[in-house]
């Protein structure tokens, strides 16, 4: 098999994974708008190249930690639509038996240690997973996903200090989508994000988070270096979220203009641009790409239908899993 062929496979896999995330989110949003989904949720649309570019180089044994905006990471790390939609709808067959929901979706079978509803809450967990791997002589690498807003949590600096001191195999992947809820990053982050990591002796990088190949190339290099004991690393990935902060954040012109949104969507869409590149390079025809889109659409539709019909957890579940060995009455 020549290099070109292998790459082509990887490229198409990345394309498909990005589409899967986008389609998952569109379906999730529909479920919310049609009042079929309990609670609310945060859409990853627009940021697909980040999760996919990075997770493409991870093995199943590698770990990630995720955020409140976690569907993208979950899909990219290998999760199935069925269990994901079941979880979002609070069904027994969801990844967490319906107990976690969108903000706590976890899939430890694929190395996803979970979304987290505490902003910054998983930074310690990711670093601890890396410590565990190093101590137990395993080769796995952990990627800690978090947003630009999360860099305001002091926990990040505590754990980066320890990761640097102990050379842990962890990559801090900061998805800078320019906003922390309803506030521009510039208003809540002084100085420079990569410089903060560098001040702790951590090599830091910046990359265009809309360019899946650029992300993937950088991730490939850094993950390999992590496995050789050269970690930790910090990456700032500049990106954009298409939807509101959460599905209910509709009227948002007071903090973000429609023009700005339109610009990112039309000029910088990670899927469209990557699709164009694949076609231009002759790696896939527009028809092939369209058929991937269609397949994914069908997959999602079936999963949604399945989840909507799936049973809720039995009442007896409420007192289980508080502890591993006792049931709470």
């Amino acid at each position: 098999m020549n290099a070109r062929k292998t790459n082509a496979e990887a490229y198409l896999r990345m394309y498909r994974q990005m589409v899967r995330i986008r389609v998952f989110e569109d379906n999730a949003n529909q479920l919310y708008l049609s009042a079929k989904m309990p609670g609310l949720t945060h859409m990853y649309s627009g940021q697909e190249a980040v999760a996919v570019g990075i997770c493409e180089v991870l093995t199943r044994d590698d770990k990630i930690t995720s955020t409140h905006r976690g569907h993208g990471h979950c899909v990219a790390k290998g999760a199935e639509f069925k269990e994901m939609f079941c979880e979002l709808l609070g069904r027994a067959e969801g990844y967490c038996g319906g107990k976690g929901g969108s903000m706590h979706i976890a899939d430890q079978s694929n190395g996803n240690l979970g979304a987290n509803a505490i902003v910054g809450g998983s930074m310690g967990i990711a670093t601890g997973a890396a410590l565990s791997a190093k101590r137990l002589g395993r080769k796995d690498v952990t990627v800690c996903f978090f947003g630009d807003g999360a860099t305001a949590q002091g926990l990040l600096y505590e754990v980066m200090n320890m990761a640097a001191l102990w050379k842990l195999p962890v990559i801090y992947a900061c998805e800078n989508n320019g906003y922390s809820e309803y506030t521009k990053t510039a208003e809540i982050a002084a100085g420079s994000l990569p410089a903060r990591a560098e001040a702790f002796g951590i090599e830091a990088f910046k990359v265009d988070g809309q360019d899946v190949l650029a992300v993937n190339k950088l991730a490939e290099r850094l993950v390999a270096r992590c496995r050789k004991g050269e970690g930790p690393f910090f990456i700032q990935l500049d990106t954009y979220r298409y939807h509101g902060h959460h599905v209910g954040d509709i009227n948002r012109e007071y903090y973000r203009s429609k023009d700005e949104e339109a610009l990112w969507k039309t000029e910088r869409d990670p899927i469209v641009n990557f699709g164009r590149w694949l076609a231009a390079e002759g790696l896939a025809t527009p028809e092939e790409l369209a058929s991937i889109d269609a397949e994914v659409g069908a997959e999602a539709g079936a999963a949604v239908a399945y989840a909507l019909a799936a049973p809720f957890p039995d009442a007896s579940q409420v007192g289980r899993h508080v502890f591993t060995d006792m049931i709470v009455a």
Partner: protein
Amino acid sequence: MREITLSKAVNEAIAEEMRRDPSVFLIGEDVAEAGTPFKVLSGLVEEFGTDRIIDTPISEPGFMGLAVGAAMTGSRPIVDLMFGDFLFLVMDQLCNQAAKAHYMSGGKLKVPLVLRTNLGATRRSAAQHSQSLHALVAHIPGLKVALPSSAYEAKGLLKTAIRDDNPVVIFEDKLMYQEKAPVPEEEYLIPFGKAEVLRPGRDITIVATSSMVQVAQKAAVLLERDGIAAEIIDPRTIVPLDMETILASVRRTGRAMVVDEGHQSFGVTAEIASRIAERAFYHLDAPVQRIGAMDVPVPFSPVLEDMTVPTPESVAERGRLTVRGELFHAA
């Protein structure tokens, strides 16, 4: 009387106190233009400017600490903590610093700050956005703890909190933000440490806090159908706690239930129930009943989540058993 939402009542309380006292300011995440995710503070930044309605980075320990220092030096900060669950992040600054500074300094330093946050489940927000953690702060000497159960109380208690020279933690019920209640146009304050008898009754005393007051009221209606007259008491603040009003009631009714949305074990129901059991010992015809939230992290799935909190039906059922002396089956 006009009716306004709890959200509006809180907004009014802050605006009135900020107009009255220039040393009051408010600090938290997305409190200014956004007016918080619950839109409780909409309009305040327009009147008071970003100098007094201060948007912060996502640094709860940090801005809680800033508030302590500001309070020691002539300001009266109101901290907006978006979810009560984030209390865990500010515990050191709240409990090791704010709560103790006055005592440790022998009365020289004062920390007049208000921490506004919320409680309450059943919003399908899962385990990290649904907790009712007021028992934790009530355990720490030096903190006052207020639990309004209506728009009326929310306004009056918050105004009192802002004028108090001590750190006060006030919990709003998230589910109540859009609920309306009569609130006078004229200014009023609600004193701390004075419980309110919301409904008189001769058969059983129900002490209910915050979100559980409405549950208790609905339970009382159910009980009434069975000819049982429940008296409902809302303590309004749990530190200080007005045991006199509660004890006077229980000594009359001879029976008591305590209903609170925090986890039952090691929570608020334990404190109030044990004080009643001790001090009304010779008046009790039945064991004091505690009804708190289940001792489980709040599950996401609606079918499970709804099982974890007290409901009018579960409270009424317990009341019925208590009054009829059939408790053995419940315990």
